[in-house]
Structures are given as structure tokens and as C-alpha cells.
């Protein structure tokens, strides 16, 4: 329960005595501890490259596989949480740090997540020779990359926006830097961090499934988990097994939604300064259990106590040291620092280009750019098609607040559900109807990410003030005029947010959706995703680097030239306040 750090505790000893709610809470906690122990052992099992880990298609094995998958998710989440707090704190508190760390984060964000997997897996395996842990780490790292960046951005943003008077109050009342971080800065960051974390985890299920079956230098390593179960089912053309996997995944996401997502969101509202924020919201049942159970007070008290001990130690250490006089870096130092940074960047770029040019000729590099264009066209067309479908539906739902309340959790659920579980079904259909894979593989890219458009359109529509709607009615604004002048401008900012998320997700998905297998049949669509998938399977590192580099360039260019402009337009012109 790291997330409870920073939470104040009034340590009434009587509050820590167990009660009936602990009957519910205790097994959950003990179960979680046992799961971690079991998973930890399984993860560090002995393993040699080339060894094939048997994956059974027996549906009764599925719960165990699901647990392994969930455990990977949890590891990645904890790592992301630690990373985001440390990285954002360094970036927000040091000027030099900010100058490098934030642009790096911006680039990292545009690297396709499965690209990280292709690049890092050999390194991780070398790190733990003879153990499965290396491969596990590579998979966890891939999931980590799908979560860490935007969580870090959110923390950084929050750290930069702590209200000035609160900082002054913290200084006036002599909070130590450590205390200030945990009592002021982290709590302030929590609402947005939790929201981003939950959104990331939802997106992460897709990648956890995709990253379990890793191909290294022509050999496929299958980590026990739902993703590998699916991969095996695909190899053996077992449609029933895929059905079981979908079912189990459904249960897993449902549990995640009920046991983690909703309680955490409810808890995070406590940290909002807005007085009305938690008035009309129903408290999720599991949140109530956690609040009532004494066990969690105990855990919380323990965590706070540890935090206090660290604080005391740090304060004592700081007191022993002479108070350092704040040294202002000079302008010369700044300039030198910038030059060094530019030099480093130039050297890295030169090295990368030489590395790629050793094996790849100019013609192929040009071809990869053309492939990128093909994928870009797919992404744009799909966003357009999805918008045409979901904007009217989203508006219709959003105009009915009660319906919207009921649909919203379902959409969130759909967004979390890993769409790649349905890829085999698409292949079967394409084969059955002899359809053109160049066209019909494309929808797979947006299968999982289209929900962000729907979700945000609903949010945007419900946010439209009643008064504006009444005014439009009063003026007799109807049909196409109403769409053009009232609702589309009103939902535009929210729609852009949704479209950006959907587009980013689609670029990522292209790596797994442009090449799809069913048994020994492989369907391929022309595009950069297929290029990366093929070169990764071959273990051709220069070409992997080329493919991922070009994909990054495309994503960055799209962000800068299209999305950021739309964002600015939305922020400047079409805000509702």
C-alpha cells in the first residue's frame, strides 16, 4: 500500500484493534503476500536460452497463468511508481535536470512500447544468465514503459503547480525537505497521478499480453501467462482455447476494476482541494471495506512510522552537515552545460547512423520511411472513421446524463480489455471471406484504442453547461447548425485529448497488428509495424533500430505538427470557462 504514504494518521490505539471488516481484508492481504512469494520463486527459476517452457492449453491452467500475468503487471506498476516519483522530483527540483530530463521523457514517450522490448531483451537476459528472471525483466520493462512516462509527466506537472501559499506555509512551519515531499508535494500530486496510473494500467493489459511471447534471435521464449497461452492457441489453431482466455481476462479486468481502479480513484479524491469533488460520488464497495478494516490502519501506521524514522535520520544527518550556501551556477556554466549536451546528442546520432548504415543501404532507409507513411495513413484514416462512428454516439450518450453515468464504467472497462485477444478472430474472418489483409488488418490497430474517443466525447458532452444548451434551443439552433456551432466546438478539447490517446495507442499497436498469425498462416499488411515485427523476429538489431527510429520520428512529427496545434487551438479558443 505504498500509495497511502503521506496520508495523515491520528494514531488512536483503539482504532487499530481488528474488527469484522478485517475478515474480508485479511485473506486478501495474505493472499497477495503468498502470490508475490510464489511468483517471485517462479520468476527466478533456472532457465537456459533455447529451452522451451511448456505452455498447456488446459483451461484449468489459465488461472495460474493469469496470476503470473497480473504479477508482472504489479511489478511494472510498482517500478513505474518509484520511477515517476524519483524522476519527476529530480526534474522539478533541479534546473539542469529539468533541461535534459523533460525532453528525454518527451522522446521516450514516442518510442513504441514493443520497440523497447525488441531493444532491451538481450541485455536483460545477459544480466541474469541461466535464470528466467532476465526474460521476465524484459517483459516487465515493456509494461513499465507503457506506464512510467505519463505517470512521470503527471507528477512533474503537479510538483510544478503546488500552490505558492502552501509552499510558504510548509516553510513557515519548518517542514524538512523529506517531510515537505511526502506531506505536501506527493499528496498534491496524487489525484492526477492515480488517474494517470489507472489509465496506464488499462493500456498496459494490451502490452502485457503482447510481451509475454518474446522472440530473440529467431527463438521464441514464452513466459507462462495469458499472452503465451493465446500465442500457443494461435499456433495450434485452437479457437476454443482463445475463448477461455478471453473469459479469464474478462474476470481479471473485472477484479482489477473493482479491487484497484475504483477504490484508488475514490481514495484519491481526498487529496483534491475542491470542496465539491467527493460529494455525489458513490463509494466503491471495496473502498468501504478497506476504510473500515483495522488491518489497513495498522499497515498505514507502519508505513508512516517508517517514513518518520527516515525523516528523523535525514534531519539528523542534515543537521550534522554544515548548512550549505546555495551556489548559483554561472551563465558560463549554463552555456558549457548546453554545449556538452548538444555534443553528446550529436555523437549519439552519429553513432546510430553509422551503426545502421553498416548493414542497411540508403534505398532501404527510404523504403522504411515509405512504410511509415503507409502506417501513418492507416492511423489517420482509422481515427477519422472511429470519430465518425463514436462522436455522434458519444454526444447522444452524453446528452443523457443518467445513461452516461452507466455507460462510462463500461467504456473504461472496454478500454482496459486487451484487444489483441481478438486478433485471431479477425484472422479467421479474413481467411473465411478471402478479404484483403492490407485493408482488413487495419481496424485491429484501433480496436483497443477507439474507446478513448468515445470516453472523452461523453465527458466533453456532459461538461457542456445546461445553460448553453437551453440558449441554443431558445435561439432555435438545430441540426447541422447545432452540430457546427454548438456541440462540436464544445466537445473539441475533450475530443482532441481522446484522439491523441487513440492515435498514440494505434501507432503502438501497429507492431502487433500489421502481422497476424493463425497456425502457420501469416497475414501481413504493408507498414512500418510489420517491418519492425519481422526484423525483431530475425534479431536484426540494425534494422530494428532503423524501424523504431523512423517510427519515433513519425510519432514526434505527428505530435508536433498536428496534435499539439489542435491542443493549443482547443486550449486557447474553445475552452468553456
Amino acid at each position, binding site marked *: 500500500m505504498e500509495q497511502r504514504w503521506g496520508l*495523515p494518521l*491520528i494514531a488512536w490505539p483503539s482504532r487499530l484493534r481488528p474488527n469484522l471488516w478485517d475478515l474480508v481484508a485479511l485473506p486478501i492481504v495474505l493472499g497477495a503476500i503468498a502470490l508475490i512469494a510464489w511468483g517471485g520463486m517462479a520468476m527466478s527459476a533456472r532457465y537456459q536460452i533455447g529451452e522451451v517452457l511448456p505452455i498447456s492449453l488446459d483451461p484449468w491452467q489459465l488461472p495460474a497463468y493469469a496470476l503470473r500475468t497480473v504479477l508482472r503487471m504489479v511489478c511494472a506498476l510498482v517500478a513505474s511508481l518509484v520511477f515517476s516519483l524519483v524522476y519527476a522530483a529530480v526534474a522539478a527540483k533541479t534546473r539542469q535536470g529539468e533541461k535534459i530530463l523533460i525532453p528525454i521523457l518527451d522522446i521516450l514517450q514516442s518510442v513504441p512500447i514493443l520497440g523497447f522490448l525488441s531493444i532491451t531483451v538481450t541485455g536483460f537476459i545477459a544480466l541474469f544468465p541461466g535464470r528466467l528472471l532476465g526474460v521476465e525483466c524484459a517483459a516487465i520493462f515493456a509494461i513499465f514503459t507503457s506506464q512510467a512516462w505519463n505517470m512521470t509527466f503527471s507528477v512533474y506537472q503537479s510538483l510544478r503547480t503546488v500552490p505558492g501559499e502552501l509552499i510558504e506555509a510548509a*516553510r513557515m512551519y519548518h517542514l524538512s525537505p523529506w517531510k515537505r515531499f511526502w506531506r505536501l508535494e506527493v499528496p498534491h500530486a496524487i489525484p492526477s497521478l492515480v488517474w494517470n496510473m489507472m489509465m496506464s494500467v488499462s493500456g498496459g493489459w494490451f502490452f502485457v499480453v503482447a510481451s509475454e511471447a518474446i522472440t530473440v534471435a529467431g527463438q521464441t521464449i514464452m513466459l507462462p501467462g495469458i499472452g503465451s497461452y493465446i500465442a500457443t492457441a494461435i499456433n495450434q489453431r485452437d479457437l476454443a482455447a482463445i475463448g477461455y482466455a478471453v473469459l479469464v481476462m474478462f474476470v481479471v479486468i473485472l477484479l482489477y476494476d473493482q479491487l484497484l481502479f475504483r477504490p484508488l480513484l475514490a481514495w484519491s479524491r481526498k487529496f483534491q482541494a475542491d*470542496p465539491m469533488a467527493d460529494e455525489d460520488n458513490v463509494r466503491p464497495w471495496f473502498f468501504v471495506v478497506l476504510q473500515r478494516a483495522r488491518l489497513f490502519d495498522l499497515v498505514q501506521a507502519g508505513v508512516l512510522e517508517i517514513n518518520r524514522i527516515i525523516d528523523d535520520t535525514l534531519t539528523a544527518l542534515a543537521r550534522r552537515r554544515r548548512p550549505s550556501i546555495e551556489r548559483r551556477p554561472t551563465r558560463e556554466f549554463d552555456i558549457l552545460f548546453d554545449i556538452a549536451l548538444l555534443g553528446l546528442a550529436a555523437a549519439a546520432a552519429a553513432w546510430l547512423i553509422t551503426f545502421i548504415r553498416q548493414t542497411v543501404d540508403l534505398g532501404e532507409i527510404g523504403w522504411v520511411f515509405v512504410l511509415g507513411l503507409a502506417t501513418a495513413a492507416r492511423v489517420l484514416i482509422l481515427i477519422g472513421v472511429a470519430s465518425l462512428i463514436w462522436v455522434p454516439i458519444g454526444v447522444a450518450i452524453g446528452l443523457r446524463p443518467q445513461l452516461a453515468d452507466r455507460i462510462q464504467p463500461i467504456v473504461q472497462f472496454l478500454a482496459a480489455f486487451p484487444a489483441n485477444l481478438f486478433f485471431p478472430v479477425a484472422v479467421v474472418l479474413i481467411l473465411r471471406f478471402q478479404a484483403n489483409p492490407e485493408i482488413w488488418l487495419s481496424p485491429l490497430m484501433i480496436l483497443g484504442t477507439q474507446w478513448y474517443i468515445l470516453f472523452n466525447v461523453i465527458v466533453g458532452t456532459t461538461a457542456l453547461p445546461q445553460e448553453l444548451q437551453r440558449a441554443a434551443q431558445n435561439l432555435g439552433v438545430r441540426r447541422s447548425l447545432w452540430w457546427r456551432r454548438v456541440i462540436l466546438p464544445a466537445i473539441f478539447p475533450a475530443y482532441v485529448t481522446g484522439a491523441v490517446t487513440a492515435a498514440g495507442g494505434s501507432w503502438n499497436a501497429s507492431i502487433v497488428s500489421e502481422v497476424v498469425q493463425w497456425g502457420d498462416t501469416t497475414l501481413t499488411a504493408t507498414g512500418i509495424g510489420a517491418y519492425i515485427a519481422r526484423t525483431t523476429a530475425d534479431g536484426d538489431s540494425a534494422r530494428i533500430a532503423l524501424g523504431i527510429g523512423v517510427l519515433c520520428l513519425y510519432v514526434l512529427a505527428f505530435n508536433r505538427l498536428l496534435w499539439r496545434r489542435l491542443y493549443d487551438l482547443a486550449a486557447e479558443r474553445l475552452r468553456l470557462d
Partner: protein
Amino acid sequence: MNDSLLRTEAVSKTYQTPDHHGRLVLDHIDFMLRHGEIVAILGKSGSGKSTFLRILAGLVPPSEGVVEYRGIPVTQPVHGIAMVFQSYALFPWLTVLGNVELGLEALGVSGAERRRRAVSAIDVIGLDGFENAYPKELSGGMRQRVGFARALVVDPDILLLDEPFSSLDVLTAETLRGDLLDLWDAHRIPTKGMVIVSHNIEEAVEIADRILIFSSDPGRIRAQIPISLPRPRSSESAGFRQIVDQVYTLLTTEPGRDGRRGAKAEPIGIGFRLPDASVQQLSGLIENLTEAPYHGRADLPHLADEENLVMDELFPLIETLQLFGFAHVSSGDIELTPLGRAYAEADMLARKQIFAEALLKHVPLAAHIRRVLDERPGHRAPAARFLRELEDHLSEEEVERVLDTVINWGRHAEIFAYDYDSEVLSLENF
């Protein structure tokens, strides 16, 4: 002289502007807070009064000069000085008790002792029963009580108050102020001196033993008014009214431009901090001034009361009227000039005419913008150009506000146009 609690000597503050010029905010302030004294600081925006309070608190280092608390230099927040903030600055995720205990916790006070002292401070300030409430459950007045409890629980010698009542409605502010004064007069709190920054003249006269009036750009101590009226003070008494009038006069006239008829005003530059006044409010105020009961002349405190305007709303209007030559102020009274009366009687088009002439004549920034646009071949100029010019004189937010003000005036007067999307000023359509 051993009764000095807090003392500053020649304190100045300069902020760096983007092009490495210094912008002077506070200029050589010598100040002393004596034992048992409440000092109120009044001043218009730009007088640096808030900055000065933060320098006293050790939150902002002065560029020059020294601050001493009981003879010890203050370079960072010290034990013995507590502060109450304008927007309460409560931690939303801590309960009332948690917020009050926080300061003690940082002092290393042990659990049981901490609780005892926090509960007693909550009791003193009248919040008992709300120990476990979160700030968001409380009204503004209750929240500021938490702010006071948090400040008082550390037994401070000195309490620094940064417009503590200005976010509250009139009734709530009055109650809380009264309660604080009662505690102070009865010595129920250990505090030995208070400095309050205020924007409410009557509030200052009601509670302070001494009022400091700051002038603007840069902030200097313009006047000190000792108040020896016995407490509780009635705002209706003649002595009280007289001091209020005196303060009004000091605040609405500039040194050297004291509004005497015919006195030549000191010329202002393009970097002048234009007051924040809308054309709507200005014409409303002029109309009201011409009509009964004022007939062109009004007592400022009375006007503020009648028109329901607080100091921060009234003063920019008064200043603008003076700037445009529509009115002048002397000894606490405002009087319309013939031009002001002509404006009141004119129809909408003629009013625009008068406004435009006054704007070009008396506001150098407006005249400057118009001149630049006239000279440019396309009669267009980006707003950023003027923003950069203003940055030498004003802070970043003030620059934006001043330019917005002049753009609004200029658009109304139709001396130039502005396009929001492209952020370009032009002479289009003229």
C-alpha cells in the same frame, strides 16, 4: 530601546527582469515592530507590501538591508514568527487537527503533548467539535480560524497576517477580527506583536496601533499614522472618521501629485502601472457622481460604502478618473472636473470622443501604441512587441494586465483594433 521585536534596516528588493535589468520593488524600508504593538500596512498594488511581509517572515531574501528578530538576523523562517495566509494555505488532505499539529510535528513535539496543545489552540480559536473535519467541509471563516489556530499553536512571538480577512464576507471577517482582538487584548495568546497587510482601510484603523502607508513603484514608506484611540473602536466616532479620511487622501493622491487644483502632475511614462478599471465601471461611477446625493463631489469613505466597493475596486477607478482628468481628489473628497461633467452629460458617441482624446493625451502607452501603428506601413504590430517594452518596468503578470487594460480602453475609444487569435494590434476599419 529593548522593546523592539522585529526590525528592518534599509531593506530593498529588486527583481530581475528577463533582459537582466533590475526592477526595484521595495526601496530602503526602515521599520520597527515594538513589544505589544499591532502595525497595519496599507498600499495600492505595486507597493510591495506583500513582498515586505514575506521578507519579514524570512520567506523572501531582501536584495539589500537586514531584518532582525530580537537582535538575530532573519534569513529564513525562524521559530517565533508565524504567518496567516490570505487563502488560508491549509493542507486539504489533513484534518483540522492534522493541519494544526503539523507545525508542532516539525518542531519535534511528541505525540501526546502535540495533541494537547493542538486541541487547546483549536479550543481557543473557537473550532472545538471540528477537530476531525477536513478543510473542504468548512466555510471560509472556519478555514481561516484553522489558519489562526495553526499559527498560534506554535506560541509565536510575532504573528504576520497577509490580508487574512480579505477572502471572507463582511460579516464573517468582522466576527473573526473581533475574536482575534479579544484574544489579543485579554492576553489569551502569547503573541507580543502583529503585522497585518490589509486592503481594507477601516479594518486597519480598527485594529492597528500604527498604520504604515506604502507608496507604489517602488514601495516606500510614505507615511506613518499612530492611532491612540482606545479599543474597542467605534467606526462612527469622529476620531475614527478623521483617520479614515486621512488614510484615503494619502492613498488616492501621489506624493508630488496631491491633486490640488492646478497643480502640475508629474509626467508618467509608458511603463506606468495603469489602474485596472473597465470603461463600464468608469462611466457608471461618473454618472453616479453627477447625480444626487453627490452632485459632483463625494466623500471617499462614504462613496465606497454607498457604492459597495472595497478599496481594491474603488481605488483603480479613482486613479483612472484622476489620470484622465475627469476628477481630482483632495482631503478625502473626490470632485468631478468640467471635463468629467461634460462626459457625464454627453451621448454615447460624444463620450467615446472625449474618452479617446483623454486617453491619447494622458496615457503615454496608448499614445505610443497609436504612434507605432501610424508609422508602420501596414498599420499592424504584434502585441508581443509592446509586452517586451513593458517588461522593463513591470512584473510579468502586471505587463499582461496593463496591456489588456490599455487594449480594452483603446478598443472602446476606437483608436486601434486588436485581434485575439493572432494577437496583433492594428488600425483596421478606421
